[in-house]
C-alpha cells in the first residue's frame, strides 16, 4: 500500500477508485469493536496508575474500571451505556476518487448499523430534542491529504466529559501562565462530573472554530505519546503533574490520578489572542484508527 507518508516524498501516487460502501463497512466494524474494547494504551496507563495510589477507595475504583473493561470485552457488550456521539476524522488522499454514492451518507450508514444494538443518544435538533433513533448524524471532519489512501479515525464521545469542556480566547499578555491556569480551572470545575481518570485534550492557537478541533484531535493520540515540539512536550509534562496534584482522583473521590495524560496540539493564531480549548475525555475513552 502506498501511504500518505510515501506520497509526501513525490507528491504523486496512482489514482484510485474507492467505493464508499467500504467506508460504511469500516466505520460499522470499528465502532462496534471500540464500544466494547478500550484502547490497550489506556488500560495499561490505568493499571500503572493503581500502583501510584495510596487511597483504598481510589485503588478500588481503578480496579473496578479494569474489571469492567475485561468483562465488557469478554461479553462483547459496551463498556459504558453512553456510547456517545460518533465523531469521525476522515483523511482522503487527493488521488482517491470516491464512487458508489454520497460519502457522508455512507459514513452515517456505518454509524446507523454500528449503533443498532447500542444506545441512541442523538437528537436531531438541539432545541426540539427529538431523538433521531439511529445515533446519526455523525460529526464528520474531512481533510484532503497527499497520496491515495483513506484514513478514518473515530471517537465515541460520551457527553458527561464533553459537557465539562471549555474554550476561551485569552489576551497574549496572559502568556503560558494564563493558559495553564485556564486548563487547571477547567479540570477543577469538572471534578467528578467528567468521570475521571481523564484524558485532557488541549488545543492552543488557531481561531474560535479551529481551537476546539485541535483539542478534539488531541484526544485521538494514544496515551504515552508526546508532542514532537519540545516546548509543547514540556507544557504537557508540567500540566499532567499540576493536574494530578489537584487531588481530585478517580471519580473525584480523592487520589493521585485525576488524569492519565494531557495532549496538547498547537496551531498558528492571530497577534491579538491565545485561543485555548480544553476537551475532556472520560474513563471510557473509546477511539479507533483504520486505513483503507
Amino acid at each position, binding site marked *: 500500500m502506498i501511504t500518505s507518508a510515501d506520497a509526501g516524498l513525490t507528491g504523486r501516487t496512482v489514482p484510485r477508485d474507492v467505493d464508499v460502501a467500504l467506508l460504511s463497512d469500516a466505520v460499522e466494524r470499528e465502532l462496534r469493536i471500540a464500544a466494547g474494547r478500550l484502547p490497550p494504551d489506556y488500560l495499561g496507563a490505568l493499571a500503572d496508575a493503581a500502583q501510584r495510589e495510596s487511597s483504598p477507595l481510589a485503588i478500588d475504583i481503578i480496579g473496578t474500571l479494569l474489571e469492567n473493561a475485561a468483562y465488557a470485552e469478554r461479553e462483547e457488550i459496551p463498556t459504558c451505556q453512553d456510547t456517545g456521539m460518533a465523531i469521525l476524522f476522515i483523511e482522503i488522499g487527493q488521488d482517491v476518487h470516491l464512487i458508489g454514492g454520497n460519502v457522508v451518507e455512507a459514513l452515517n450508514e456505518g454509524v446507523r448499523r454500528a449503533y443498532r444494538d447500542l444506545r441512541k443518544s442523538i437528537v436531531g435538533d438541539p432545541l426540539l430534542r427529538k431523538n433521531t433513533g439511529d445515533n446519526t448524524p455523525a460529526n464528520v471532519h474531512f481533510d484532503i491529504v497527499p497520496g491515495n489512501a483513506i484514513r478514518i479515525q473515530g471517537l465515541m464521545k460520551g457527553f458527561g466529559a464533553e459537557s465539562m469542556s471549555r474554550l476561551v480566547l485569552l489576551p497574549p499578555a496572559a502568556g503560558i501562565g494564563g493558559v495553564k491556569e485556564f486548563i487547571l480551572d477547567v479540570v477543577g470545575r469538572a471534578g467528578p462530573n467528567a468521570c475521571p481518570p481523564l484524558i485532557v485534550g488541549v488545543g492552543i492557537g488557531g481561531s474560535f472554530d479551529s481551537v476546539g478541533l485541535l483539542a478534539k484531535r488531541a484526544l485521538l493520540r494514544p496515551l504515552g505519546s508526546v508532542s514532537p515540539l519540545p516546548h509543547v512536550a514540556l507544557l504537557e509534562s508540567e500540566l499532567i503533574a499540576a493536574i494530578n496534584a489537584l487531588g481530585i482522583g478517580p471519580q473525584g473521590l480523592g487520589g493521585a490520578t485525576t488524569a492519565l495524560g494531557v495532549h496538547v496540539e498547537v496551531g498558528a493564531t492571530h497577534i491579538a489572542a491565545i485561543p485555548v480549548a480544553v476537551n475532556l475525555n*472520560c474513563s471510557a475513552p473509546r477511539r479507533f484508527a483504520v486505513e483503507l
Partner: protein
Amino acid sequence: MILETLEIETPLDVEHARELRAGTKVLISGRIFGARDAAHRRIVDLLNAGEPAPFPLAGSIIYYVGPAPAKEGHVIGPAGPTTAGRMDTLTLPLLERGLRGMIGKGYRSPAVRAALCHYGAVYFAAIGGAAALLARHIVAKRVVAFEDLGSEAIFEFTFDRFPVVVANDAHGGEAYVRLPE
C-alpha cells in the same frame, strides 16, 4: 488499608439514612427506581398539577440512568450513572415528598445538599465508566411509566449488592474533592 463497606436494603428510613457517612462504600439491595432528565421533568409537572408521582417516593432511592439495550440473555444492558447535577433543580420537590436517596455521579448544588440535611436523605456516587459491571448487580427490570421516553423512561429495578459510595450525607459531609473557588 481495608475499605469499609456497609450493606443496606430499600426502602430506606430516615434513621438509617442519617447513619450513612460520606466516603463509606455501600452495597444496595432491593427495589430502586430509574429516572433521568425527561422523566424528572414529567414527574415534577405531575406533582405541580397536584397528581401523584408514578411510583412511591417515600423511602425510595432513584438511580439516574439511561441504560444501553440489553444483549440477549441479559436482564439489562450496561447501566452506569449519569451526571446528577442536571436533575438538581427538579430534585427538591421529590425530597420534600420523602425521597430518601439518589444514585448518580458528579457534584450536587448547595440547595440539594442543604435539603439532604433537612429531610435526612443521601446522595450516592456510582462509578461512571463501570456500566457493564454495574449492570450485573441489576437482577430485574421493568418499565413503570413514560415508556415513550425509551432509555429515559422510569424503570423499576431490583438491585443485588449494587456498589456505591456515599458522596453527600445528611450531615453536610461530602466525599467529593472540591477545589477552592
